């Protein structure tokens, strides 16, 4: 396989994160689905989809358990306590629909405020939550933190040499791994020499297989996947086709 060195070094340095490099930056993919940039003390999470259960209820369908927000915030709080980030980027689709931020329960709103205290908190807009939100923090369409570039959806014409390594979300990638026992499917990070796609951090979020044409088109041959879970693992990005 060629181009090995452009991936930089790949090593498991922490018990629940896999270290890798993008555009020369050392990053850690955490088992929870969060991205940790130690040098900048920056934590990035994507696709929280807070308020999704409300959307279903409003449509007159089943009333899903209303604990999704609690669950996601608890996970985020745990991650923040572990890494003590001073900057947090929520990389889009943080809210399932534009009104969701306004509809947050008071307790949950206060919780987010507590997490935001003493930190730079940036909400990047996504397709589900475009525009400024009714919540504290700064609201941006894209963000450049040299040499990385954060936006919700990967741009196929993104030029990494000029704009920096692209970090995006949106696709909720999932990878399947065949073990000696059986086949296991986990949400995953995807990265190559130009870009990184984060897994969905929120509960109740579905996923897109790495074999899907859209993801195949975005990632170069030689792209890698990092499976989330208790013990994150890195593997070459699976290429098998399945349109689910």
């Amino acid at each position, binding site marked *: 396989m060629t181009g090995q060195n452009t991936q930089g070094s790949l090593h498991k340095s922490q018990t629940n994160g896999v270290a890798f490099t993008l555009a020369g930056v050392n990053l850690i993919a955490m088992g929870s689905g969060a991205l940790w940039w130690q040098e900048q003390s920056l934590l990035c999470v994507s696709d929280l989809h807070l308020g999704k259960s409300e959307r279903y209820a409003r449509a*007159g369908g089943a009333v899903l358990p209303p604990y999704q927000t609690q669950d996601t915030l608890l996970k985020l709080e745990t991650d923040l306590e572990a890494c003590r980030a001073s900057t947090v980027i929520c990389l889009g689709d943080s809210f399932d629909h534009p009104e969701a931020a306004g509809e947050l329960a008071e307790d949950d709103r206060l919780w987010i405020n507590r997490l935001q205290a003493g930190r730079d908190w940036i909400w990047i807009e996504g397709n589900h939550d475009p525009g400024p939100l009714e919540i504290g923090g700064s609201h941006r369409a894209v963000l450049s933190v040299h040499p990385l570039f954060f936006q919700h959806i990967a741009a196929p014409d993104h030029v990494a040499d000029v704009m920096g390594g692209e970090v995006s979300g949106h696709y909720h990638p999932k990878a399947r791994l065949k073990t000696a026992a059986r086949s296991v499917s986990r949400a995953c990070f995807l990265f190559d020499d130009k870009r990184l796609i984060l897994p969905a951090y929120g509960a109740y979020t579905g996923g897109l297989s790495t074999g899907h044409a859209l993801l195949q088109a975005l990632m170069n041959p030689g792209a890698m996947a990092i499976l989330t879970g*208790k013990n994150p693992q890195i593997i070459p990005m699976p290429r098998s086709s399945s349109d689910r």
Partner: protein
Amino acid sequence: MKKLPAQFSDWFATRGWSIHDHQQQMLDKADATALLLIAPTGGGKTLAGFLPSLIDLAASPRQGLHTIYISPLKALAADIKRNLSTPVTEMDLPVRIEDRTGDTPSSRKRRQRADPPHILLTTPESLALLISYEDAPRIFAGLQRIVIDEIHALADSKRGDQLMLAVARLNALCPAARRIGLSATVDDPKAIARFLTRSGDCCHILNADPGPKPDIAMLDIAAPPPWAGGGAAYAIPAVLEQIAQHKTTLIFHNTRAQAEIFFHKLWLANAQSLPIGIHHGSLDRVQRDRVEAAMVRGELRAIVCTGSLDLGIDWGDVDLVIQIGAPKNVKRLVQRIGRANHSYNTPSKALLVPANRFEVVECLIALRAVESHSLDGEARGRGPLDVLCQHILIIACAGPFDPDTLFEQARQTGAYHDLTRDEFDACLDFCATGGYALRAYDRWQRLMADADGRYRLRDPRSAARIRMNIGTIQDTDTLKVRLQRNRGGKPLGEIEEGFAATLSKGDTFLIGGQVVRYEGLREMTVEVSRQANKTPKIATFMGTKFATSTQLSAGILRYFEHNDWADLPSHTAEWLTLQQQVSRLPQADKLLIETFAHEEREYLCAYGFAGRNAQQTLGLLMTKRMEELGQNPLGFVATDYATLVWGLTTVTDPAALFEKQALEHGFEDWLSGNAVMKRTFRASATIAGLIERNLPGQRKSGRQATFSSDILYDTLVKYDSEHLLLAITRTEAMRGLIDFERLREMTQRVEGHIDHIRLPRISPLAAPLLLEAGRVPIAGAAQEHLVAEAAARLMDAAGLTP
């Protein structure tokens, strides 16, 4: 004794028939509020059920619905329509008969609602849909009789519970409507009567002449059966011989996959080109119709089938029934045998073909049980609450309802006779608000209460969603299969999504008896092409998994004590003798456990004889305990009689794993985390309406539902452990897939008497388990280990070093 009107007795005479005793009795008792007829197949049950309707309509012609007939099978409804049309046409009666099932085109359905026929033949799901319409009172106005066919098949299932709740509603709309149940032979007719009847009413039970004793034996085959598996391919030459010697043979299998494989192999050996068809629930309807029509015309010499043909359709000249694989319980066997009894006075003929060596013993015990008329019966549990939830939503679709009235109606239904108000309110709360401890988004409740206490749908448009998801049959996890063509080729049937996920382009599998090649997945449909030259991968199909009944298991253990294998074929006798020499035979009052090493793994085999589901649970519990004790289990496999566990460490003290307290305590913890609970939860959550399988505009894939249902389950366990759905799941699982009741029964039976024998090698009785499919992997430390190994291998192969 009521006389047949002249018109009818004349018609009977032209056919050379005279009225059967039980048909006369049904006529005499036609005014009874509830009537149950127990009759074998072919005993003129249909006419018995409909004669009073036809006579009534002939005497006073009228408009509107008179009789509604419900059967579990769509095919049965179609068949009855065919049969009834004959007397109606020949006597020129003013009676319109129509069927209405999932297969009925919507134009006809609309017409039926506007202008109901006199007799409507339908299924439980279609009836549930009908009562959900606002104009239900108009559709059913004037209803006189409710006939439920094959009621024994419905009486112990959720479909039956849903049906009787709907019938309760019908009686609320039409208090005069009488209930008639038609049943095959059962062990407890009173239980069926209770199921049929409104609480407080009485039910007459009529027993028709059961007919001559069945002629049933094991098929004599020179070649010994294999050690494991359910295939019975070894029996094919003998089966073909039987087909050639009879007019029409039905060949029953316990699972659809087995039917497919058997049919495929049968065709390969079918040198005489005898016309043989295949029929099961996963095949495309058009295909099934073709097979049914060919059968009726007498064009087929044999049909390979599953439970889809278990019920009373009166197919042409079936003169032999072959049961492939042990029957699992005696009652089903007897009912199946009844299929070869279309001509009322000749004994039904049936042959059993064990699929593996252990099944030889099972079949022998089953034969003896049939001989001695001891049918097994499992006690029915209380009415399931998930079905009640769906019923509440269905009623809400028809209009605002009063909860007190609905509660009373439910309590009048047999299975729910001891429903408490608290339980009902919990169901109502769940339907209305989701029933969560955390009261959230109250504005978006599904049901809202009016000032006068009546409940209605908050958004009337949600009625469409509810109607789309009516039913209790879990046909989740299937994808349609079509021949590849530009605009969608011929539909062949369905396969499980889990199986489809393992396919790559070029893989071949069996469906409808043909080998097809997987070409790809397009818009939730599996596309295939015809391809004959590769060995097919076996498809898995949805279908019930039966466990051997308690009675049969007990019979086998008693048999082992007698030490006399004279009744068994020599190959099986030798096997059991060898087991006795090398190890021991399991006994009723002890739990036999063998441990041995084999090919670099350590094994433990526990012979519980508790049935497949309970043995599976035992496997999960044992491996959990082993995990805690650091004993590194890797996996297990369970059959109806034993559980085989393998791992990395020798187990020296198995008694520790079966210590009663540990088992029960471990059970509690484990209950919340395991996969069987999640699967059970998914089924109940779907029925109760928390998970919607069908959404307007788009069909939600089964796998997506699996994913979100696991998340829902975990969320509830974490944040809302008292939630209604968790309680329902627990109750379900205890009886169903987990079958903890039977496990408890087993522990009581052996009362701590563990009989542990350490062997130098694998035993004859344990060996077949190694060949069984359905291994359950354990995702413990050992699995994480394997995941890391697999990842490392992939990286290695790609030339990367972590």
